[in-house]
Structure formats: structure tokens, C-alpha cells
């Protein structure tokens, strides 16, 4: 068990190192650097000034050296300075994390709370009108671009309330806070809930076909007991796995949702940072995201072990 954990952690480190190299190189392939951007923001300047910026920021150093500077900084907890704001990267990233984290948390909660029960209902009532309705609903959820849904919600807000939710760092009440985050969270979580619902449904159907469900029925258990005590626990196992995958996916949804709802979280910030060619920012943000994704995956695996005795106790 411990050995497994250590192994996983080591593999995580390997993955993260890989991510760091990948993002470092990818960014260097992207044409144009911060100097070009600054030149652009000033509507073109003296090429000499541009060259100076490049030298000042160490962009003319050999790539391995640049990489090493970044990595060794990382190990010392020094994330460097943003090229754009010239503030420490950590100061830029940290305050934005809770915003996105809350949004993601809310979206995921929404997704699970809506997705799992609806999936179960859909499976238990397979091929009924309700099932078809839920299936079409979930498919629509998977088909609608998150930003369009967000826009529709905005349009509805304008139509009905004459106003739209504007992000505020310090909302007056908890209710205001919830209202402010709930709408974007729902618009991004809708897709995840649709996915979880579909998955729960198919996994549930799979489980309901299995022998032990028949055994449970043969014991005289009621349908409810069979569905919830026996089938559901088995059916959520694959669902748990997707929550790990979903985190990475959710982030993509958050990028557009934060853009549409003008929420100053890390997701939108990443897009801005890429646009600005703010290497330290992009690199560290991507690393942060990768760490979150990898960690969530690890947690999911551990969770899986807890839930599934076959893995916990060795098959």
C-alpha cells in the first residue's frame, strides 16, 4: 500500500517534470515573445529597446539555461516575476485560485448532485418516456457549448431581471455570493452533470444486468434496496474515475465561462497570460493546473481503493 503510494507519487513527479518541459518548449515555439507584445502595446518602438527587453528578461539565454532557472526557482519556491505586471507570479496566482476553486467546486457539486440521481432514475426507468427525456436532456447538455449556455443565461437575466450577475470580490451577503457564482457554475456544471448522468446510467444498466443483482432480487429485496444498496455502489465506481478526468475537462469549460461572466479566476487569466506571452505566468499556471489534475487523479484512485475492496485488499 505504502509502496503503491510512493510509486504513484514518483510517477506524479515524472509526469509533472514532463509537463514542465512540454509547456516550456511549447511556449518557446509560439511565435512572438513578451518583447513583441510590449512592442505591440506601445504601437511599435525602437528595435534597440526591444533587444534590451529581451536581454533584460533573459530571453536570449540558451533554452536549457532558461529552463534550469525556472525549475531551480520552483524548487526554492520562487516562481519568478510576471513579465507583464512585473509582480511576483505567486502574488498574481494565489488570489485568483480561490475564485476558480469555488466556481469549480460549485460546478462539480452541482454536476454530481444532479447527475448521479438522474442517471440512476434514467437507468431504473430504462426505455420509459422519462428515460428518453433525461437522455435527451443529458445529450443536450453535452452538445451545448458552455459559453453559449452562459450567453443565453445572460440574455435571460437581462430579459427577466434587467440585470446580469457581475463578479464582485466581496459580495455583501452569502446569498449574493451564491447567486453570483451559482449561475456561471451551473452553466459550466451542466455539461459535467450531463456526462456524469450518462455515465451513471450506463454503468447502472451494466450493473443491473449483473448476476449479483439477480441474487439480491432472489433474496426478496425490494427494488429500492436492490438499486441503492447493491447496484448503485457498484455503479458509482466508474463514475468516480471520471470525476478525475472531468476536473481537467471542467477547466476548459471554466476558461470560456470565466470569460463570458467576467470572473477574474485562474482559467481566464491563463488565456490572457498566453496571449501576453507571459512565460513565467503561463508556465507556473499550467504547472499548477497539472498538479491539481494529477492530484485529483491520485485522490480519485485512492478513493477508488477505499470504495472497492477488490483493489484495497488485492484481488
Amino acid at each position, binding site marked *: 500500500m505504502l509502496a503503491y503510494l510512493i510509486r504513484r507519487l514518483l510517477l506524479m513527479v515524472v509526469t509533472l517534470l514532463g509537463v514542465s518541459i512540454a509547456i516550456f518548449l511549447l511556449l518557446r515555439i509560439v511565435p512572438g515573445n513578451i518583447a513583441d507584445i510590449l512592442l505591440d502595446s506601445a504601437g511599435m518602438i525602437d528595435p534597440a529597446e526591444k533587444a534590451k527587453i529581451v536581454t533584460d528578461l533573459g530571453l536570449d539565454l540558451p533554452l536549457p539555461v532558461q529552463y534550469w532557472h525556472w525549475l531551480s526557482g520552483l524548487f526554492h519556491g520562487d516562481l519568478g516575476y510576471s513579465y507583464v505586471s512585473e509582480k511576483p507570479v505567486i502574488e498574481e496566482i494565489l488570489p485568483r485560485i480561490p475564485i476558480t476553486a469555488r466556481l469549480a467546486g460549485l460546478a462539480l457539486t452541482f454536476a454530481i448532485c444532479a447527475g448521479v440521481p438522474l442517471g440512476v432514475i434514467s437507468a431504473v426507468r430504462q426505455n420509459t418516456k422519462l428515460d428518453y427525456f433525461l437522455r435527451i436532456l443529458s445529450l443536450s447538455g453535452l452538445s451545448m457549448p458552455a459559453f453559449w449556455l452562459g450567453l443565453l443565461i445572460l440574455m435571460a437575466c437581462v430579459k427577466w431581471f434587467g440585470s446580469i450577475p457581475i463578479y464582485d470580490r466581496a459580495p455583501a451577503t452569502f446569498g449574493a455570493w451564491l447567486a453570483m457564482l451559482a449561475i456561471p457554475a451551473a452553466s459550466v456544471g451542466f455539461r459535467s452533470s450531463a456526462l456524469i448522468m450518462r455515465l451513471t446510467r450506463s454503468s447502472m444498466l451494466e450493473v443491473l444486468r449483473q*448476476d449479483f443483482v*439477480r*441474487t439480491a432480487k*432472489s*433474496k426478496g429485496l425490494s427494488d429500492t434496496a436492490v438499486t441503492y*444498496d447493491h447496484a448503485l*455502489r457498484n455503479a458509482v465506481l466508474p463514475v468516480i474515475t471520471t470525476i478525475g478526468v472531468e476536473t481537467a475537462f471542467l477547466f476548459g469549460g471554466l476558461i470560456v465561462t470565466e470569460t463570458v461572466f467576467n470572473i477574474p479566476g485562474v482559467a481566464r487569466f491563463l488565456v490572457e497570460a498566453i496571449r501576453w506571452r507571459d512565460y513565467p505566468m503561463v508556465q507556473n499556471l499550467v504547472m499548477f493546473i497539472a498538479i491539481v489534475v494529477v492530484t485529483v487523479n491520485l485522490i480519485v484512485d485512492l478513493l477508488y481503493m477505499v470504495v472497492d475492496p*477488490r483493489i484495497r485488499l488485492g484481488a
Partner: protein
Amino acid sequence: MAPVLEVSGLNTVFHTRRGLVRAVQDVSFSVEAGETLAIVGESGCGKTITALSLMRLIPQPPGEIVSGSVKVDGTDLLRLDDRTMRQMRGGKIAMIFQEPMTALNPLMTVGKQIAEMVMLHDGLPKAAAKNRAVEMLQMVRIPEPARRAKEYPHQMSGGMRQRAMIAMALACKPKVLVADEPTTALDVTIQAQILDLIGDLQREFGTAVLLITHDLGVVAETAQRVVVMYAGRKVEEGSVSDLFARPLHPYLRGLLGSIPRLGSARGLALSPDERLREIPGMVPALSDLPPGCAFAPRCAQADAKCHAQIPPFEAKQANHFAACWQA
């Protein structure tokens, strides 16, 4: 003695893409307390569907029990509402399945799965139910039952799992035990143990056992009476000794002739160089049955009548029935 289980005129169909499939046609039989009735036949003959029909565990749709009655202690299961039926399942009529690995919930300890049964039907509190589970495990001769009760199915061997299944099925002392190929997935040495166990417990509890199997050896060693099924219908029924000594239906005769017998080397059966007797052709698909006797196309004795009309199931000798124009 009145039979504990009395099945009459059971008809189960499936509505499929290719149309109506008559999986069980007009099947009747009865089992007395302490008696073992074996239903024997090849794959697709309808024996498992018969068993599931008794339990009302046929998936509906596509399946449907069209007619017939299944009486346990005089109560017709097919007329019961769902709630009462649930009380019967496990309480009066219990079932064990072929694959003990998949038939047990992988996420629940064996003890809990047994206790659940007891709590449900005997209304025992949790602690007592757990004790009862351990007792049952002991009864099915699982060493260290208290420890094993806390184990999950995957931690047990196949034989042990099947014992646990039996413990669960018998936990509420049902009148009828339906055993659907209980040993097919097991090795011979384990199979022998399990069959012995079922027999012992049956004697102890006076349970009526309906044994579903394709293995004529198992039938010969465990059952008192036998029903032979072919293509959804009964083709022969009688006591085990009558059937093996004087098989009436050409299908059963063919089957008995086609299996190699242990002991042949000792001159107890066929001589080594003798070819096995073959039944030509193959088992017909239930969706595509011939008009007359379903076995006619494979039957050497079949005549025009066989091909045209379904033979009635009737007594050919005392307590020995068959559905054959020729017998």
C-alpha cells in the same frame, strides 16, 4: 406427501427482434420435500428460464410468463403481488447460481450478504443476523466462519463462494431451493464437495431441491427424479433409475450414448476403440423451431408424423413419461 413445489403449464416467452421466442412451453413438474428433481438439457433448452420463471426473475420486458402456475406450499407465486412475492423469494423459495464469483456483490462482505437475507425475512436485528450468518457459514463447512464472514467475495476461492451462496440461500430455511448449475464452474473435486453439501443440508432441512444441470453424471448421483428438456419442452420425465436404465426418448438415448464414460477402460462401459455415438446436427434455435417434434431433424427414427406434429407428453410406462411418437 403433497409436493412442496408444483409447477403446471408454465409458458414463458421472449419478445425479440426475430419475433416471439417460446423459451419454456407447457412445462409442469412437482417436487416433494426432501426430494431432488433434476432438470437436464443442453444449452438453450429452457431449463434456466424455467428456474428464473419460478422465481419471477425473468427480465420483463423482453420476457413474459404467459401462463401456468407455480405453487409453493399451495401458494401460486405467479398470482402474487410484488410485495408478497418478495417475501416468498428467499423466504420460501431460494436460488443459487452458476457463477458464485459474479453472483455475490463484490462490494459487500459475505457475512453482510447473508445477514441481509436474515434481517429481511426473519426480522432479526443486525447483531443477531450477523451471528446467524456466521452460523450459516459454519453449517456450510467454511473453516473459521467468523473471520470469513468479514471477507469480501473476491477473497474466497470458488468453492468457498459457492458455499457462501448456499449458506445465504438456506439462511431462512426455504421450502424450495432452486440450484441453477451450481457446480458447473467448479473443479470436479470441489463439485463433489458442493453436491455432498447440498445433499446433506437438504436432508437436514427437508428442502425440496430443483437442480438445473447439463451434466448427466451429476443427475445420476444426486437426483431422485429427472425432467429432460429439449427446445423449451419437456421430452421425458421419470425416476432417475428408470431414465438411465430405460431411456425412452431418442434424445436422451442419444445423449447417454454420446458421453464418454469413466471406467470404460475397466470395461465398465464402452471399449476404448469404439466410437462415441453421435447425435447429428445441432440444437435448434428457439426462434426457429421445426413444426413437429423439435428433435425430429436430428432423430434417426423420425418419420413423417414426427416432422409434422408435436408429440404429446404422456405416460409411456408407470411414472415414466415421454413426448415421442416412436416411444
